C-alpha cells in the first residue's frame, strides 16, 4: 500500500525518472518500502536495469505499508507487487515543464482492493486530473551489483557528457569508453562491421581534470548501449547532480549512478565481453541448481566453490546475439515465457526463488560470425520480508547448497 504526495517541481523530477527508465524497457515496477519509493525497470534481454529510489524525504508526505493477506491459517505480508506498462504511465508524465508550472500537488496512491494505482494532479484554477492505472501483480527484480568494488570510477558533470553525446548519431547503438590513468576517450564502437556509406567513426578525448572524481585502477575499454546513457543523462540534468560511472573490464556490468540526498538512481548495463574470453571464467558466479536450464556451462560445478570465496557480482553467461540488443522479436518474448516466468513466481516459505534470466539459447544464431558474449545481471527477487533479508542477505540469491555455512559475510549492495 502506497500513499505519497509531491509538489509540481518534484513531479518534474519524478517524471524525468520515468522517462529515463522508459529507455530501458516498456515496463515499470513501482516498489515502495521503508527506504522510499523505488521505480525499477529491466529490459527484455536482461542487459540493462534501471532503478530510481526516491527517499521518503523527497516527497511532501510518504506512507507505505505492507498489506497483510489472510490465507487459510497463515498470514503472509506482501509488498505492493506492482508492474505498470510504460505505455500507460509515460503519457501521464509528458510535458513535464507544463506539469511543473500547473500542478500544485500530485498524489499517488494505490487501492488495496483493486490492482490500481491512482495518480491525481491538483492543478491551478481548481482543476483536478485523476488517472487510474491498472497494474499487473508482479514481483520486482533487483540487481545485485557491488559498484563500490569497481576498479574504475569516474564522476562527471552531466553537461560534459551531454557534449559528448552530441557526437554520436542515433543510428549508433553502442559506444565505447576507453580509459587509462591519463585520459578518457568516448568513441563509436568499432566492433560493428563498418558500412562505408553511412557510419562515421567519432571519438572524443576528455582530460582527467574535467572529472569531479577520477580513479582508474585498470586500463579498460568497455562497450555498452548508448540509449541508456542518454536516458540517465537527461535525468541527471533534471537533478543537477553529477553522474558516477563505475566499471571494470569488458564483460562485467557497469553502473551509472546519481546519488543525491533525496534520491538515488542506478542504471546497471551489460558491457560487451572480449571475444576470446570464455564466459565460464572463474569469475562466474554460482547459479541456482533449482534453475530449469542445463546451462550455463560449468557454473554448477564451480558453484560450490565460488559462493564462499567471492561476493556475488555478476553472472557471465555465454550468449550469442549478434548485437548487444537483439531486435525484440517474438522469439525473445516466447523464449522468456518459456522460462516459466520464474521472475513472477514467489517461492513458498521464506526463500524467494531466484529469477535467473538471460537471453536464452534460442537467441543463438548458428554460424553467426560475430558471436558476442556479454554478461547478464544476476537478479534476485525482492523478498517481502525485509527483515529476514537483512539477516540472510543471500536468501535472494540462489546458492549451491542450502546449508548455512556457505553464507558469505561479505557485504554487497542491492539496488
Amino acid at each position: 500500500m502506497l500513499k505519497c504526495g509531491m509538489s509540481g517541481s518534484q513531479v518534474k523530477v519524478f517524471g524525468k525518472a520515468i522517462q529515463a527508465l522508459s529507455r530501458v524497457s516498456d515496463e515499470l515496477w513501482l516498489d515502495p518500502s521503508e527506504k522510499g519509493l523505488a521505480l525499477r525497470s529491466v529490459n527484455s534481454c536482461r542487459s540493462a536495469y534501471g532503478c530510481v529510489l526516491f527517499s521518503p524525504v523527497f516527497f511532501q508526505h510518504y506512507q507505505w505499508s505492507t498489506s497483510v493477506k489472510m490465507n487459510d491459517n497463515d498470514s503472509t505480508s506482501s509488498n505492493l507487487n506492482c508492474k505498470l506498462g510504460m505505455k500507460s504511465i509515460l503519457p501521464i508524465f509528458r510535458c513535464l515543464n507544463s506539469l511543473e508550472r500547473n500542478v500544485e500537488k500530485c498524489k499517488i496512491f494505490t487501492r488495496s482492493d483493486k490492482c490500481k494505482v491512482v495518480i491525481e494532479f491538483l492543478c491551478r484554477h481548481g482543476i483536478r486530473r485523476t488517472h487510474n492505472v491498472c497494474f499487473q501483480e508482479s514481483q520486482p527484480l533487483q540487481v545485485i551489483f557491488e559498484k563500490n568494488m569497481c576498479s574504475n570510477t569516474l564522476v562527471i558533470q552531466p553537461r560534459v557528457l551531454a557534449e559528448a553525446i552530441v557526437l554520436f548519431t542515433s543510428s549508433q547503438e553502442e559506444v565505447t569508453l576507453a580509459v587509462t590513468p591519463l585520459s578518457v576517450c568516448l568513441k563509436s564502437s568499432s566492433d560493428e562491421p563498418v558500412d562505408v556509406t553511412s557510419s562515421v567513426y567519432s571519438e572524443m578525448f576528455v582530460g582527467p581534470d574535467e572529472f569531479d572524481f577520477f580513479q582508474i585502477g585498470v586500463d579498460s575499454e568497455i562497450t555498452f548501449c548508448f540509449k541508456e546513457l542518454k536516458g540517465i543523462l537527461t535525468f541527471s540534468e533534471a537533478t543537477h547532480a553529477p553522474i558516477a560511472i563505475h566499471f571494470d573490464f569488458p564483460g562485467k556490468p557497469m553502473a551509472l549512478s546519481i546519488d543525491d540526498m533525496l534520491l538515488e538512481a542506478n542504471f546497471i548495463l551489460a558491457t560487451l565481453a572480449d571475444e576470446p574470453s570464455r564466459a565460464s571464467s572463474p569469475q562466474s558466479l554460482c547459479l541456482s541448481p533449482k534453475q530449469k536450464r542445463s546451462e550455463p556451462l560449468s557454473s554448477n560445478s564451480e558453484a560450490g566453490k565460488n559462493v564462499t570465496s567471492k561476493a556475488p557480482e555478476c553472472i557471465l553467461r555465454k550468449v550469442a546475439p549478434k548485437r548487444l540488443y537483439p531486435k525484440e522479436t517474438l522469439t525473445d518474448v516466447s523464449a522468456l515465457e518459456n522460462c516459466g516466468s520464474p521472475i513472477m513466481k514467489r517461492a513458498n516459505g521464506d526463500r524467494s526463488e531466484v529469477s535467473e534470466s538471460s537471453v536464452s539459447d534460442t537467441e543463438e544464431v548458428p554460424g553467426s560470425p560475430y558471436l558476442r558474449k556479454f554478461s547478464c545481471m544476476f537478479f534476485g527477487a525482492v523478498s517481502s520480508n525485509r527483515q529476514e533479508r537483512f539477516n540472510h542477505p543471500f536468501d535472494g540469491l540462489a546458492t549451491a547448497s542450502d546449508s548455512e555455512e556457505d553464507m558469505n559475510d561479505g557485504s554487497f549492495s542491492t539496488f
Partner: protein
Amino acid sequence: MPHWAPVNLPAAFLLHSVTPGVSNMIAKLAKTCTLRISPDKLNFILSDKVANGGVSMWCELEQENFFSEFQMEGVSAENNEIYLELTSENLSRALKTAQNARALKIKLTNKHFPCLTVSIELLSVSNSSRIVTHDIPVRVIPRKLWKDLREPTVPDADVSIYLPVLKTMKSIVEKMKNISNHLIIEANLNGELNLKIETELVCVTTHFKDLGNPPSASEDASQDRNPGQMAEVRIDIRRLLQFLAGQQVNPTKAVCNIVSNKIVHFDLLHEDVSLQYFIPAFS
C-alpha cells in the same frame, strides 16, 4: 595534437575554418553528393541521374573565403582535382560539433578506407582542451568518371526573374504538395511569377508580382519577347520543395531561369557560396 595517419591518396589538404552552414544546406538538398576539391574552389555536386529525378546541383565556394590554410594536391599537375563521394549528413553532423571550436582541421586520410577526418579542438568550461575527431568515410571517384561531374552549362533562358522570399514560397509549395504531385512554375519579363497546381477538382494559383527581372544577357532575345508572355515548366513538386527546404536563410541573390517546357534553373548566392539547382520538366 594527435598524430595523423599517413596519406597515400592522390592528395592531402589541410583546411582551417568552420563551414557548418553550407554543409547543412547540402545535407538537405542531397543525401549523397560529390565533393570536388581544386586549388581555389570547393564544389558540392549532384549530377543529374535518374535516381535524383534528373535534378542536378552545383554548389561552389572560393576556398580563400573560408579557410586560413588550404593545401591540396590532385592526381597530377594537369588534373589537379580530387573528387570524393560522401553522405552529406555525415559531414554536416561532424561540423555541427565545431560550432564553438577553437580550431578545426579537415584532412583526407586513409584509415582502412579513405576518410575525411574532421578534427575539432573545443575549449571546455574548465579551460582544458577537448579534442573531437570524426572519420567520415568517403569514396574517391576515379578520373574516368569526372566527365559526368562537370559544371553544368547554364541554358539560355526564355525568362529570368528574381525570386520572392524563399520561406514564403516554401510554405505555399508545402501546402500545394498535399493536393498535387506536379506544379507549374511560370514567369514573365514583367516581374510576375506564378505557381500553379491543377487537378480534376481544383486549380490553385499563387501570384507573385513586382519581383523584377535581372538584366538580360542577350539584348536581342529580350527585345523580341512579349513581356507579358509566360514561360512555363511543369515540374515534380517534391523536387521544388526539397530545394526550398534547404534554404534556411534568404539568399543575397536569387534568380530563377526558365526554359519553356524544358528546365527551371535556380541560381542563388548566399554570401560567399553560390548554388545552382536544376529541375527538369516532368516528362
